[in-house]
């Protein structure tokens, strides 16, 4: 009894609350990155290795626009647009010729793109991290911490973007085309849907979402050329754990994994907390390789 009381007293409740908030914030951003990735996979069987680099480029474009105009919201919108156009161009030039070939070729091609983009960023912007200033600098008190409102704004904005995207998929004309193409590519083509352009459009939307998350996340850490790999790895884990091509599963998995990593970082150093998500991945692969957040296949 005494040990039980001691155990409950030793739980750092304040830290748990703080880490829950942190976990939800990074989880929402991760969900934004991963939903683009899983959408691209679901519709065209392309694992986009360059997704992390699109995230990184979005952050850099954000930095440039922010320096030029001084408006964070302008930076957010412009970065998403620019990277979405870039994504469309990349899809047309490199992925379209590969349609109908072994899907493994597309991994290789997007890996090539990620190498080019990452080294371009290093060459153009140098190895020193850039900073994006927070648009909202007010704080509120959370135990002993001054918790920035901006973080909550990020979570809300990410949720809003994902939500409006979901509505668009459900009711928008192009959204219906996307869902139709995901279900049956050949039939969609036969019904007069321009499938190649749906592919390009989806890639552009995914790229734009990655860029938006890059700009949103930029103020929390520095913007540097190597940030893409971390994110694409995390997004891959999320997409596998959530079930490939499953939008809702990816969002749940993103929040789940980010929460776990945040809690783990109470007790270990953050670079090792990554191992927790690796362990989740391994366990998922062992016991439920179709994904944690999908209904059991019949």
């Amino acid at each position, binding site marked *: 009894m005494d040990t039980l009381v001691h155990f409950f007293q030793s739980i750092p409740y304040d830290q748990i609350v703080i880490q829950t908030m942190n976990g939800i914030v990074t989880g929402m951003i991760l969900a934004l990155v991963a939903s683009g990735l899983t959408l691209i*996979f679901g519709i065209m*069987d392309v*694992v986009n290795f360059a997704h992390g680099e699109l995230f990184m480029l979005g952050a850099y474009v954000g930095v440039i626009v922010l320096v030029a105009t001084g408006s964070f919201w302008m930076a957010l919108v412009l970065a998403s647009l620019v990277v979405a156009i870039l994504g469309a161009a990349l899809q047309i030039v*490199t992925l379209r*010729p*590969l349609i109908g*070939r072994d*899907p*493994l*070729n597309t*991994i*290789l*091609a997007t*890996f*090539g*793109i990620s*190498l*080019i983009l*990452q*080294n*371009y960023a*290093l*060459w153009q912007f140098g190895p020193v991290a850039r900073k994006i200033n927070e648009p909202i600098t007010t704080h509120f008190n959370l135990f002993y911490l001054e918790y920035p409102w901006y973080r909550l704004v990020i979570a809300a904005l990410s949720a809003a973007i994902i939500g409006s995207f979901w509505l668009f998929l459900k009711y928008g004309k192009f959204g219906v085309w996307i869902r139709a193409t995901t279900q049956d590519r050949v039939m969609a083509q036969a019904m007069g849907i321009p499938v190649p352009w749906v592919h390009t459009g989806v890639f552009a939307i995914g790229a734009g979402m990655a860029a938006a998350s890059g700009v949103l996340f930029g103020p929390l850490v520095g913007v540097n050329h190597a940030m893409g*790999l971390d994110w694409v*790895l995390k997004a*891959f*884990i999320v997409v*596998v754990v959530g079930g*490939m091509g499953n939008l809702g599963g990816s969002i749940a998995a993103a929040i789940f994994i980010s929460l776990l990593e945040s809690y783990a970082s109470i007790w270990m*150093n953050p*670079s*090792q907390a*990554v*191992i927790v998500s*690796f362990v989740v*991945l*391994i366990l998922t*692969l*062992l016991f439920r*390789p179709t994904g944690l957040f999908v209904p059991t296949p019949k």
Partner: protein
Amino acid sequence: MIKHSNKTYWIGFCVVLALLIVAPLVLPEFWRRFLTEILIWGLLAMSSDILIGYTGMISFGHSAFFGLGMYGAAAALLLVSPPNMWIAIGFGLVAAAIVSLFVAYFSTRLRDIYFAITTLIFSQIFYVIIFTWTEVTGGENGLAFSRPQLSIPGIYSTPFTTETLHWFVLAVVTASYLILRRVTQSPFGMVLQSIRENEPRTRAIGYPVERYKIVAVMLSGLFAGLAGVLYAIQNKFAAPDFVYFLISGETVIFNVMGGIGTLVGPIVGAGFFLMLRELLSRMFGDQFPYLIPLGFIFIAMIIFLPQGLLGFARRWLNR
């Protein structure tokens, strides 16, 4: 016809081997080392060809096997005194075997894209462990050690020179090539190729596909570990950079550039890649981001030349 092409094959093999044996005697010091390095990277690429070319599984985690071979050799060279080459090779191979068993057990449950992603994630796990476990692995700085002597146990022992090192590496790579070639032509290799062509059908015939895949990944990991040991002996250090994802990526690039499913192709690809890199950094200086033009060439080759340099050359010769 078959007999004829077999003969030309062996003649070609002997000519190339002879050229590689003579090369260190005529080349200047820098290119001698460069050639040795190409052979080592070629061995790494060749080992992953077993998976990419013959079994149809793209591994993005070969840096883990390579790096663990390297750290295994480093452990042997630091712990055992006097440093012994054969113990280093043994340690490296055991380390690579353990890691590849671990990776193989989990990742072969998945196919295609999922396999590529999980191998990538596994290699990243080992990178994080090696990078953060500073007391054992030296963390970011890695480990430095002295080069062992070239020895035949009990008979002969002499320090490595650049020539003997080259010949030693050449001997190991040639032997590995012949072994891998034999393996790919064996019944086991045939089953791997049938898994690549049609996995459900291979399973339906009654082959335990998972077991074959695990053995394939382990075989591939062993030879990648061997390449890591050779690299450790050549450069006298082990660093976490060699476990990083970039090495796995370059291994895949070597394969695609040279031609997958040919065993020799990956070595050609490694040579092509490293020569281009050297050329670019000589023309534009050390700071030049050589991966940008190489990335463009890589993508162009995937789209227009999916057979790689060797496949292209072969088709052109047969015309």
